[in-house]
């Protein structure tokens, strides 16, 4: 057993760092460290640079155009990028639909879709959730009826992140109304420009627009956009969810969050000194710092098992649960560090470039909105309650 890095891994980390410093815009980095919202360009410019370098689809095997990295390289890549203030890679293409396509798709589908995902030329979004279904994913009502060489799709998807930026959406649709909930589902790729696709924003509690309702009204989808077999889409769905759950713990960004929090504590004034002098507050930072370390080490243990050929089991659900609690707690402590100056609502500072000076310190405007917004982490991707149900059943046999 050994936590230290071999020289070639150190060199790799240096290469990643140099790349990030060269390709990340200062404005994007600043948004990361202050917790402000990115705009579309922040993501796209960065993702295209990664794509050009061949690093966007960094979890993919070489066979499909990925770099074929080992566990340590992935770990370093994710951590260095987080430290450097890179926005997270939007997972819908490279982490979600991409692996589904190269695992379940035909050769023609691989050739058609994978290059655009790797380069970030084509943006994807996810059509899983439906109104009223929530974490009960299999309870879906969007229908696809075969007519000749097309499906006619009708229904509504919701909570669709970045649908307003998306070129394509991957959808779970019901192709057999008579089957049991998890049967009769198919996995379909839909071009967002197809007539009948409408996107309506959902405004979050902090005023942000990330997620959307997507209405599908007699949308005509060619049969060749079906991934896997008709009525067997649940297999793709489960495969995708297991992949999603692993990275969703967001350890690298939480590590950055703790270090930003310590920085803020050293700036925030209190009783003539700073908040960093207050042991009651610094103990809370220490506590969340240690929680992040425990989560990281747990994740490494899972990855180490996987590297030896094991598959990620349902126990990764607990990583997702703890990861979301930790992100929420960091956001909460950051808001508390700001204190009374977390009260002004400053959408100008949150969403746009503006020449106004912020009210309070630079780190104040996103503090409360981020706390509100982070409550979603224990809801999306399978709520905490659902994850615990899964572990209870699949791991503990209860």
């Amino acid at each position, binding site marked *: 057993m050994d936590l230290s890095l071999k020289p070639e891994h150190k060199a790799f980390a240096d290469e990643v760092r140099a790349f990030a410093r060269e390709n990340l815009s200062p404005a994007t980095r600043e948004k990361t460290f202050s917790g402000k919202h990115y705009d579309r360009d922040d993501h796209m410019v960065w993702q295209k640079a990664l794509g050009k370098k061949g690093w966007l689809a960094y979890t993919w095997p070489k066979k499909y155009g990925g770099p074929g990295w080992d566990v340590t390289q992935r770990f370093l890549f994710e951590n260095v990028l987080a430290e450097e203030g890179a926005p997270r890679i939007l997972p819908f293409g490279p982490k979600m639909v991409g692996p589904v396509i190269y695992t379940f798709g035909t050769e023609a589908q691989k050739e058609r879709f994978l290059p655009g995902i790797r380069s970030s030329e084509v943006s994807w979004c996810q059509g899983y959730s439906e109104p009223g279904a929530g974490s009960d994913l299999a309870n879906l009502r969007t229908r696809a009826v075969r007519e000749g060489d097309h499906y006619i799709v009708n229904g509504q998807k919701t909570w669709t992140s970045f649908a307003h930026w998306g070129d394509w959406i991957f959808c779970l649709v019901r192709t057999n109304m008579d089957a049991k909930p998890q049967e009769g589902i198919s996995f379909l790729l839909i071009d967002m420009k197809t007539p009948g696709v409408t996107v309506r924003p959902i405004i979050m*509690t902090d005023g942000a627009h990330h997620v959307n309702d997507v209405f599908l009204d007699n949308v005509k989808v060619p049969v060749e956009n079906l991934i896997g077999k008709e009525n067997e889409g649940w297999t793709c769905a489960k495969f995708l969810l297991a992949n999603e759950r692993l990275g969703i713990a967001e350890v690298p960004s939480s590590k950055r969050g703790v270090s930003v929090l310590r920085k803020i504590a050293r700036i925030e004034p209190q009783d003539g000194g700073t908040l960093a002098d207050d042991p009651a507050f610094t103990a809370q930072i220490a506590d969340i710092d240690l929680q992040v370390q425990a989560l990281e080490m747990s994740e490494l243990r899972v990855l180490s098992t996987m590297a030896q050929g094991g598959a990620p089991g349902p126990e990764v659900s607990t990583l997702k649960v703890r990861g979301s609690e930790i992100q929420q707690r960091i956001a909460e402590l950051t808001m508390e560090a700001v204190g*009374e100056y977390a009260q002004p609502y400053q959408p100008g500072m949150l969403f746009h470039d503006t020449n106004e000076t912020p009210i309070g310190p630079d780190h104040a405007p996103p503090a409360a909105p981020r706390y*509100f917004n982070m409550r979603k982490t224990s809801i999306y991707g399978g709520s905490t*309650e659902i994850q615990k149900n899964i572990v209870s059943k699949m791991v503990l046999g209860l």
Partner: protein
Amino acid sequence: MDLSLSDEQKQLQEAAERFVRDKYAFDARRKIAATERGWLPENWAQFAELGWLGMAFSEEDGGYGGGPIETMIVMEQFGKGLVLEPFLPTVVLGGGMIARAGSAAQKEALLAPMIEGKKQFAFAWLERQSRYNLADVSLKATKEGTGWSLSGHKGVVYNAASADEIIVLARTGGSAREPKGLTLFVVDAKAKGLSRRDYPTQDALRASELTFDKVSVGADAVLGKVDEAFPVVEEAVDRAIVALCAEATGCMDAINAGTLEYIKTRKQFGVPIGKFQVLQHRMVDCFTNAQEARSMTLMASLKIDDKDPTVRAKAASGAKVQIGKSGKFCGQSAVQMHGGMGVTDEMAVSHYFKRLTMIDLMFGNQQHHLTRYSNLAMAA
């Protein structure tokens, strides 16, 4: 010992309930929040008419002889409706300090019109470096002839844009953070040299940053004694804290009721999600938290008039700790049980959650008041 409401108090409660029901439906509130002022003059006039602006003041001060229990009753209902009218800065803080420290002339000139609904106040104490330390004040007031000249900055001043007078805490002596050497001034909101930057807060209230550039006031602008304002401010803030606690209990009642309703109707896996034991127990914990918040608020309301400032401070801090804890628990739980809907702007739940969160940050959060209480309790 008697914990029952009098008939008058019950009537007051019903009237406040009625006001919220009639005027503060969710969509109506959204419209009020979107007005330029952020609150409705017609509502304020109704408060005056109903006697709410004067209820907590003695009859000799022109009030109706009620006290903290009356304030509690009304604030609780305001919490249920997330009422936006500036009752706390004007009546509880401004009115409270004038009643406690004001001269007869000041009461005449300020308190009487306030009770009639014709004057509003804002209380400017916070500065960039203050955090929760009420004595960490550096805005300077220097003698200028018979009057004073004020220079410096104040932040997050609620209701400054609507106030007729700003009550300003300034340093007239003493060193940094010394409680001694602080003085309260009543400053005309339109005074020369006073500039404002207005903004909404996270919870749709209105506040401002204020800059004082040699603002001149007369000797009669001093509220209470020069250099001796700290005890007045500390008491006023303790009273404001207890009123905020009452508002928070109302918020918790509303958010719990809404969540209970939601989990009874929202179905997943074929049953209402309220059939899942984990949500049932969490809902029970929410109600228990709200009960405890109500208990501590009631106790603080009953003790806030105590002659002993330590009793008063312990009661206020104790209640603030509880509502910080309970508010966070109820707010976070409600969002979680609402699922994705809980984090959207569309549902009332997120607005209650925001208000509960902001209440915790006002006048010292849970941790601050736990420390304050602890120090007082260990000193005993």
